[in-house]
Structure formats: structure tokens, C-alpha cells
């Protein structure tokens, strides 16, 4: 049914396992990719514009240009991910043919389909998808996502939404572990998620795939916070290359993800960083400006 034991799915989840404890950084060119790799990033995400610029400039945000992704793939030896629009399975097929290591079916880009996500089990390349709650996470896993990340609010520089999403997912999982079998059937209905996956989470107390965090991480303290709340690795989008000293901040956030349990080392990582990216008050944003509501 869910192919958890299939060799292909295990290999997809396997790469996510290798990225745990690390930082995946958004980059828009080869120079930024080198800065990310030199700082100790475990992977880079190739895209045309970081979320803060997508938000500012508007228009349709699509898969990055092939030349740009290829240039980034040539410049680093760590894994290279790229984003495809929600439901745009042909962008995904092209990225698969190009040989990117992971595809992010991402709400940061303009959705191509307002009802369907990509049928991800049909691909050899693994997918990561965003989620705000357990139901959304399990629907993505059912479709074949091999990694889940909280959506947060990309490009906002505000950690509040990422915190809300990781707390929600962890809390909903914890609740499942104490419910009886008949209650799980009802819960699956509430979550709009397949019963088989709901039962798996109830039995294990965690998602069947690695659970990372994204959307609003701008400081070492932000990275440590989401790791403390249960994230197994972090994605940083605009937070690094929209700050005044990207190299220093990249190193600091990598150190924070590694030492999230060690306040002395976090203090050390937080020194001499220059200014963080400017942030947005998500509570004052109009519903139509939110990226997190994209995805079904």
C-alpha cells in the first residue's frame, strides 16, 4: 500500500537520514552554493529567487532555470535539491532527468494545480513536502514524500509559524499514541489522512519519514529552537543570503543545528553575526499574502 518497505522508498528515506542534524540552505547561484558548502551545509536548495524576493517581486514563481541548477550542481559536492511547483509533475520529471538529489514540491512557488499534489511514488528521485499539521504531513507521505518539513512562513524571517507547525505536528502525534483503535478510525477522518498511516504514527509516536523544519529561520537561536521542538534538521531560505554577513551567519546556523542542546556553544555561534534579515509580522499579513496556505 504505502511502499514503506520497498527498496526504492527506503533509498529515498535513506538520503533524508544522511541529512539529519544538518542545515539545507537556499542558494540562487554557484557563489552562494560554495559559501553554503564551506559553512558546513549538508545540502543546498537551488532556486531562482529566495522566498523574500518572491514575496516582494510577485509574479509567477516557477522551477529554477536548468542552467542555474546545473551551475550549482557543478560547483558543490554536497546534495543539490530543487523546487517544483505543487502538482507540476512535469517540472518534477525534468528535475529528475537532470539528476537533482531531492525535489521540494513547494508552496514557495506558485501552485500549478489547486487540487492535486504530485504522485510521488512514481518517481525515482525523492521528494520533500511542506506541512502545517499531521493530516497534511500524512497526506504527503501517502502520496510518496520521503521527508516532511514544516512550512512555517517562507521569506518572513519570523519563526512563529514554524514553531506553530512543529508544535502542532508533535502534539497531534503524541495524542495518537494514547488513543484506542476505534478512536484512531475517527481521528483518521478528522485528520483527512489514511487510517493505515494514522495507526503507524500511533504505534511509533513519530512520522514514518524524517521530520525537518523550514520557514522563517533567521538566527542560530531560531534553528536551535525548532530542533528542541523536535525537528531533525533545518532548511534556511532567505535567512542567510538576506542577512548582512551571509558567510558568518551560515556557519553560525550550522553550528546551532549541531549544538542545539548546548547554550554555551549557541552563545559562541551567536556572536559577531551582523544584522539578520528584516522580518515581517505574520499576524498583520493578509491571508492572500501567506504562502503556507498553498497545498491541499
Amino acid at each position, binding site marked *: 500500500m504505502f511502499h514503506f518497505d520497498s*527498496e526504492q522508498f*527506503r*533509498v529515498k528515506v535513506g538520503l533524508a537520514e544522511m541529512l539529519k542534524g544538518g542545515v539545507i540552505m537556499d542558494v540562487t547561484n554557484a557563489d552562494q552554493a560554495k559559501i553554503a*558548502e564551506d559553512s*558546513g*551545509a549538508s545540502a543546498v536548495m537551488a532556486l531562482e529567487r529566495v522566498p523574500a524576493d518572491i514575496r516582494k517581486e510577485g509574479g509567477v514563481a516557477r522551477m529554477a532555470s536548468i542552467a542555474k541548477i546545473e551551475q550549482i550542481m557543478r560547483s558543490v559536492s554536497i*546534495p543539490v535539491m530543487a523546487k517544483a511547483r505543487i502538482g507540476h509533475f512535469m517540472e518534477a520529471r525534468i528535475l529528475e532527468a537532470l539528476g537533482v538529489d531531492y525535489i521540494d514540491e513547494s508552496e514557495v512557488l506558485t501552485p500549478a494545480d489547486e487540487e492535486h499534489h504530485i504522485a510521488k511514488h512514481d518517481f525515482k528521485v525523492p521528494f520533500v513536502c511542506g506541512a502545517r499539521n499531521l493530516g497534511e504531513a500524512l497526506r504527503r507521505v501517502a502520496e510518496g514524500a520521503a521527508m516532511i518539513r514544516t512550512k512555517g512562513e517562507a521569506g518572513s524571517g519570523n519563526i512563529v509559524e514554524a514553531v506553530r507547525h512543529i508544535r502542532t505536528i508533535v502534539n497531534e502525534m503524541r495524542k495518537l499514541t494514547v488513543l484506542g483503535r476505534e478512536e484512531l478510525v475517527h481521528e483518521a477522518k478528522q485528520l483527512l489522512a489514511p487510517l493505515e498511516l494514522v495507526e503507524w504514527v500511533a504505534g511509533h509516536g513519530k512520522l514514518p519519514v524524517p521530520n525537518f523544519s523550514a520557514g522563517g529561520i533567521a538566527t542560530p537561536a531560531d534553528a536551535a529552537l525548532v530542533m528542541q521542538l523536535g525537528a531533525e534538521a533545518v532548511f534556511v531560505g532567505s535567512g542567510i543570503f538576506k542577512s548582512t554577513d551571509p558567510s558568518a551567519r551560515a556557519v553560525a546556523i550550522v553550528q546551532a543545528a549541531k549544538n542545539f542542546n548546548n547554550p554555551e556553544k549557541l552563545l559562541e555561534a551567536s556572536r559577531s553575526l551582523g544584522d539578520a534579515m528584516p522580518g515581517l509580522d505574520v499576524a498583520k499579513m493578509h491571508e492572500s499574502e501567506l504562502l503556507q496556505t498553498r497545498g491541499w
Partner: protein
Amino acid sequence: MKKVGVLALQGDFAAHAAALERAAAEAVFVRDAEQLDGIDGLVIPGGESTTMLKLMHYDGLLEPLARFGREKPIFGTCAGAILLASEVSCPSQESLALLDIGVERNGYGRQVDSRVTRIVPEAEFVERTGAGKLEAVFIRAPIIRRVGQGVNVLARYQGDPVLVEQGRHLVATFHPELTSDSRVHALFLEKL
């Protein structure tokens, strides 16, 4: 019970700790040089070798790890294998050079070329650990292109060595920690 450190800079260190516990050892995470004191052996897990190398430099861990390896056993999988090899290519990078092997990074290609396969280990592996094929999970795996004198090959895939030992150290280019088979970890524990 043997106490084994798992280098926890980045990567699948949690999977290794679970595998060591299944093989009846105590696992502790190592993030500092001081944490190398008092452990019987060390696992360098899978992950990104370039990333781990940067993090080792940042924390000044390269020399303490090399010193540890001159006295006690180290087991490296995938990225760990690259960090233990004496020679690294595609692209080249420095390493702890504790085993005389030459490895080519991402030897099979990118993630779409990653695979799970079953391999028949050498007779010696079976004699020392038990019968049966080995399930080998290769993820952006390196290929061992050269083995020096004194390196013992315990399993091959498509003709290339994938599980080798030299003296007290053990290296796998695949991920035994991502399977339920504890024999490779048990083999390492025999060395402690």
C-alpha cells in the same frame, strides 16, 4: 558491555546508535574531543563527508580523531569510509588516512543511482559472523577503487570491495545501520 562512541556532527548517527544497541553495545554521541575519553571504539556515520570535514575543522577534531584511531578501532560507513581512506577523489579532499584504500566519491552517481541490493559476503565474513546474504543500502555511495597491502576484503559488489578491514579499523561503503541485520556491527564489536 562495550561503550562505543558515535560521531554526531551530522548524518545518520541516531541510526548507528540504535544498531549498536541491537548488537548489545552501549552507544554514546561524540561531539567534542573530550568525549573520546572512556570509549572503546568509535563509529563515523553516514552523512556528507565534506560537511563533516568542515565541522571537524571548526571544532579542531581532526587531530584528536587521528590520535584516537592510532589506539582504538574506528568503523566508518559511507561518508565515514571516505573520511578514513588514505586517498579520496572526485573531488579530492583531506581525510584521517587510517586505512590504505583509495575511494572515489559518489562512485555510482547521484541520488537517482542509489540502491538497495543483496550481496554474497566473502567466506571469511560468514565464518566470523554467521551465514546469509548481506543487504547493502548504497546512498550516493563511494566506490573503493584501490586497496593497499594488509587490507582485508570482506564483501564485494559488482567486483568492487564494499566492506574492508585493516588492523583494528573497519569500513563499509554501504549502510548496515539502515537494515535489521546486526552482523557488521557485531563484527566491529569483536575488534574492541
